[in-house]
């Protein structure tokens, strides 16, 4: 039995090499169809845009926006994918005596959120900073904090600032593998504008977000920053976001916009499809005589049909793999747009196989009723 299969594999493979022209034709058109097909799938009518995720937690996403090209709807797409969006770094803030208003994205919505002062007042000079309620447990009005981070242009800043106000807002806490970390917010003066920005306090080096985390400011502990106070603080906030694990740091993320090139891709797909089907048709039709010979010499119908079309199928699958690989490489290198997914690749491969099988089955079914001798001696 195994020997029988070996003999048939041998027969099929030999043909793959001897009947180069037909198989090569199928191969080439399969490459083209898979290339265009995968490109179509990977775009599905959309082109990509990059957004960098600073931190992704299991419950919350912290993102930082690299440039201002992004619209609110872009951000919304991201929140739709990941659930809650916590904050976008460097958000403009307006403060008056009693309240600071920040334009933030929170839970699917871009919204203005008001924070009232718990203590102190608004910033009056650029060496001042407003901190949150939780940070207020560590710092008081008049304390000096060392703030390091990046400004809007991305240049690093490191300044000593005096706390002038404490807002009535909470921090998010989560443990990481390297230590505990509190995500908080503070209001800083950057280029004469006030911004609400993310701030972190860490024990050890729990934050490992890289060195160009715009929108993140690190606060250096001052003298009052006793370890037991810090501990209690971590414990306090710890309950709020229990089980909130870091699942991604500094991720490149893609969002999609409508693709104007869609029409061309579909046109390419239709052309590719018809030539592919045409080449299959030719390759099967010209094997009519071979089918007859195989039947005459002792093959069953299904077996004979398999034998005459499996090398075409192999060529098609091989072509599909090559076409998809080229497509993926171009997308990875950024030469082509597209969201790469294993499912799309498998779908394209499956479609190629089904197209091949389907079209050959139709021809095969038509021939089943024919007389063996007619298959051999009479051409169509």
């Amino acid at each position, binding site marked *: 039995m195994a020997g*029988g299969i070996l003999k048939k594999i041998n027969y099929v493979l030999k043909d793959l090499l001897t009947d180069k022209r037909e198989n090569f034709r199928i191969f080439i058109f399969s490459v083209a169809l898979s290339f265009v097909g995968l490109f179509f799938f990977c775009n599905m009518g959309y082109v990509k845009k990059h957004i960098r995720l600073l931190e992704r937690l299991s419950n919350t996403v912290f993102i930082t926006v690299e440039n201002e090209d992004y619209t609110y709807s872009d951000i919304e797409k991201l929140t739709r994918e990941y659930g809650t969006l916590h904050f976008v770094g460097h958000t403009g803030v307006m403060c008056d005596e009693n309240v600071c208003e920040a334009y933030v994205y929170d839970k699917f919505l871009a919204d203005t959120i008001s924070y009232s002062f718990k203590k102190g007042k608004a910033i009056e000079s650029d060496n001042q900073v407003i901190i949150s309620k939780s940070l207020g447990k560590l710092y008081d009005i008049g304390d000096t904090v060392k703030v390091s981070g990046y400004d809007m242009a991305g240049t690093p800043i490191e300044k000593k600032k005096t706390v002038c106000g404490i807002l009535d807002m909470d921090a998010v806490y989560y443990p990481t593998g390297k230590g505990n970390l509190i995500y908080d917010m503070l209001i800083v003066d950057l280029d004469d504008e006030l911004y609400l920005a993310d701030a972190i306090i860490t024990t050890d080096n729990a934050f490992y977000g890289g060195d160009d985390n715009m929108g993140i400011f690190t606060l250096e502990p001052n003298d009052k920053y006793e370890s037991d106070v810090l501990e209690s603080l971590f414990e306090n906030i710890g309950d709020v976001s229990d089980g909130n694990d870091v699942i991604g740091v500094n991720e490149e993320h893609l969002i999609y916009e409508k693709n104007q090139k869609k029409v061309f891709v579909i046109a390419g797909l239709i052309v590719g499809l018809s030539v592919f089907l045409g080449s299959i048709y030719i390759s099967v039709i010209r094997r009519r005589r071979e089918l007859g*010979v195989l039947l005459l010499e002792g093959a069953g119908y299904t077996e004979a049909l398999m034998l005459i079309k499996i090398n075409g199928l192999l060529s098609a699958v091989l072509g599909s793999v090559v076409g998809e690989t080229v497509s993926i490489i171009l997308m990875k290198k950024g030469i082509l747009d597209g969201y790469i997914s294993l499912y799309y690749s498998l779908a394209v491969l499956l479609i190629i196989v089904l197209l091949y099988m389907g079209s050959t089955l139709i021809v095969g079914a038509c021939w089943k009723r024919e007389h063996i001798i007619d298959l051999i001696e009479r051409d169509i």
Partner: protein
Amino acid sequence: MIIELKGVKKEYSDGKNKKITPLNNVNFRVNKGDFIAITGPSGIGKSTLLNIIGCIDKITSGQYFLNSINTDDYTEREKSHVRNKYFGYVLQNNGLIPYRNVYDNVSVPLMFDKKIRKCEYKEKIEKALEDVNMADYMHRNVNELSGGEKQRISIARAIVNDPEVILADEPTGALDVDNKDIIVEQLCKLNERGKTVIIVTHDLDIAGRVGVQYVFNHAGQLLQADV
């Protein structure tokens, strides 16, 4: 291998209600080692008979026994097996696969013979090609060969897995006189070695060189010719 047809009838309905009956109550027996020629006018049913014998066609009524087994009982699979094991076919237009080489063409019957292993191919193919004096052609392309050469390759394919019966339908129909002689000689040689050979031919000269001749009459019956 004993071939025995009893009251065999073959009917085709041609489009409308008209019926064509190429075989009508045919009684026919072929013993092992016979060399039989079937002649008769065109369209009378010679090929039909040969195809029925070769398990390519079904009969409408009557019985066809192969070694006393009624072929009616065979499944499609068993028929395929019988075609492979017991019959070698030589067709009018050689029936070779044009884009495969001689070796691959001759190897086709071996592929479906479960008892033959891949490593035996070369020996068997060599032997079959030697029998038809084509040993040097093993790796040639089929479409480069002449009609006579192709027909000899076709005989090599028919005998490669050593079937008991050779069925040849107009094997010389497309050949010139010289090639015709070569083919007939080879069929005679095969018969001398004990193979049953049944040949359909228009050529009374060929028919004359054969042991038993059968002729179809217009009633669709097969009659033994007086030699």
